[in-house]
């Protein structure tokens, strides 16, 4: 094997692979962090549809849960939430 790209049976042929797993850790892009108030949330799902990063998925109760590893902090979810249940909070500096 020459490199991690060398997976095909044909010499010198590089493959794209549907079975590749997952995306990149992009949380370090973030300046503001969305925080959902589940009391105010009515589980309308708009934040899930509109999240550009697909970082929000419905939890067990149908209400959205953010995977912060993939959240770039754009703020679309907070801007679109009809209940104003998402607040953008400044990330703490380390």
């Amino acid at each position, binding site marked *: 094997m020459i490199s991690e790209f060398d997976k095909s049976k044909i010499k010198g042929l590089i493959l794209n692979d549907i079975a590749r797993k997952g*995306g990149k850790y992009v949380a370090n892009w973030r300046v503001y962090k969305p925080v959902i108030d589940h009391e105010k949330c009515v589980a309308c799902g708009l934040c899930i*549809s509109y999240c*550009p*990063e*697909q970082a929000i*998925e419905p939890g067990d109760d149908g209400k959205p849960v953010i995977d912060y590893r993939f959240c*770039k902090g754009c703020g*679309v979810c907070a*801007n679109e939430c009809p209940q104003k249940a998402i607040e953008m909070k400044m990330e703490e500096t380390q």
Partner: protein
Amino acid sequence: MTQDFDVMPGNKAVAHGVRLARVEVVPVFPITPQTTIIEYLSDFVANGELDAEYVHTEGEHSCMAVALGASMAGARTFTATCSQGLAYMHEVVAQATNYRAPIVMAIANRTLGWYWSLGPDYSDIMPEMNLGWLVGFVESNQECLDQILMNYKIAEDYRVLLPTMMSLDGFYLSYSQERVYLPEQEAVDEWLPPYKAPYPVDPTLSKAWPSANLPSQLHTTYRRLHEEVMEDAKKVIAEVDRSYMENFGRSYGGMVERYRCDDADSLMVTMGSMTTAARRAVDKLRGQGEKIGLLKLRFMRPFPKEEVIEVAEQVDSIGVVDRVVCHGTGGGMAFMDVKSALYNTDVRVPVKNYVTGLGGEDIPIDDLYMMGKKIIGNKGKKLSKEVDFVEHPLPSGAQPIDIENEHCVHPGSDGCAGCGASIIIRTLLDTLGPNTIVVDPPNCSGVNYAGVVKVPWVLANFASAPAYETGIYRALRKKGKADKVYVTSYSGDGGTVDIGLQSLSGAAERGESIIWLCYDNEAYMNTGIQRSGSTPLFAATSSTPVGSVWKGKPQRRKNMLMIMAAHRIPYIATASLAYIPDLKRKIKKAAEVTRNGEGLAYLHVHQPCPTGWYFDPAKTVEVGRLAVQTGAFPLVEVDHGEFKISVKPKELKPVKEYLEPQRRFRHITEEQLEILQTYTNGDWEALLKMEKEGRLPWY
């Protein structure tokens, strides 16, 4: 002669050269890493610093054709490109030679796919080498500026009268900052008088013009004459170099530069930006008492045969460093030329080839030092192996995060924060399902999302993605799977309304049952926000900047809806990322139409781009919604000829509300705003009228 200097990237030095040469026509099409050349030029024109016809072409093939037409009509002409763009120009590049058009073109080198890279090697210029152009390579940003001026002087000399290409290595020169001295405009004007074409295509000036026709019996003769002209060009190149020295105080040696060659007994041969590192390697070896010299090839066409032989006669070993492979020959381009230059001479020394720096990989001083050591060690030896590939292992990078979900897209892309394109991809692929093939002409989504989708994503060439789709669709149809697998594009507006339009029109007219999805962010975002045929009136982009002369894009956008409707295809719709249920319904309809084999389904989806339109990323969906509510981007569909407005606000909001969050419109005056409002109202009324009619009459 005092000269001001500034610190600037190579692309800006090129643009300054073009400005100082008072170029009259500049056709452009963006491609990384050339794009900023044409952006700097658009700034000069927008601010009245360069009085030139600036032509935003719809693709490189047209770009080179505009350059050729302009040059034939007698104008001093400049254009720039690289890589895929240069390859797409190829046919017209060949034509420029016999039309004797002294075009000056800058090539900010970049690898020609296959494998794709933005970094430089000479695979892009290699196919253009033998078409009869003068082809040169520069090493520094200062040389970029000086060579542009010298190239006009050489190209427009009636002893030459040929087009010239100047290669500057992408990134290493194009984007790297160096000190550059700017000659005085008056001095340049005196040295480089306006171009006077001997036989311009202009019936008011000339009754004769360069011909493309020649009886086949004379081809050999005229090719021989062209070789003589190329030989004559060598003298002119040397003359111009001396004259430049006398007038501006800088000389580069003409065809080649010899560095520490006087008493050398071994020789390294380089070209382009790697030469700077090679100088340091040679210095180091000289410091150790080795007598090694360096020959920098400044021109490859015409090839400096005499200069190479002259230096070769005094040394005992030669090593040629190549940033390109001529596949099937075993080695590089300069290697072949150097070797063949020496064959019918008395020089019998080992000539070794080092192939390195492909795909834009750096060629560090340490590598060149090692090559230099080997060249010295080859003295008096018979080589057992002619070519060495200087390779490096891949440094280990970050691993993707493992995640399971039922979507067809993974999170964790390289897209900008607030990117609207990703919302559309997810909706598209989740609606069509896993048995979908995405064909993608170059765009930002290909860069950002190809690595996170769970369906085949085929990177196509810019001008031919609909034909790639056709090929895949026809193969599937032949194998009886046309109703089981969807073939869709994920194209930007450039790939749809500009460079891709011809191929799209062909596929639509042939009735290929494929989906064409255009995500319209209203400019070439992948190369850095240049205007497209879909950019709205008055929008500022990096190729339609606002200055003392220019006030944003002066043209209205193409009406793609009607262009596609003219093809009588079964389904056409506009959609928006702000109206997801409507978008999903339209994707399903497109799927149904293509699954039934009825023909091409066209989806044009509006995609606000926070990076390119300059608004707060949180407002991606809000801006999209405002576009629909103000009538700036109406949502409509044409279903087998039946015209319908999908989202009809009771009353349109003023278009100002849509423009306000976007800084690309911040310069617009009250008068411009009124024009935009009038057009928007007119378009909306036309749509209402068409809906009332119901069926488009030509279906």
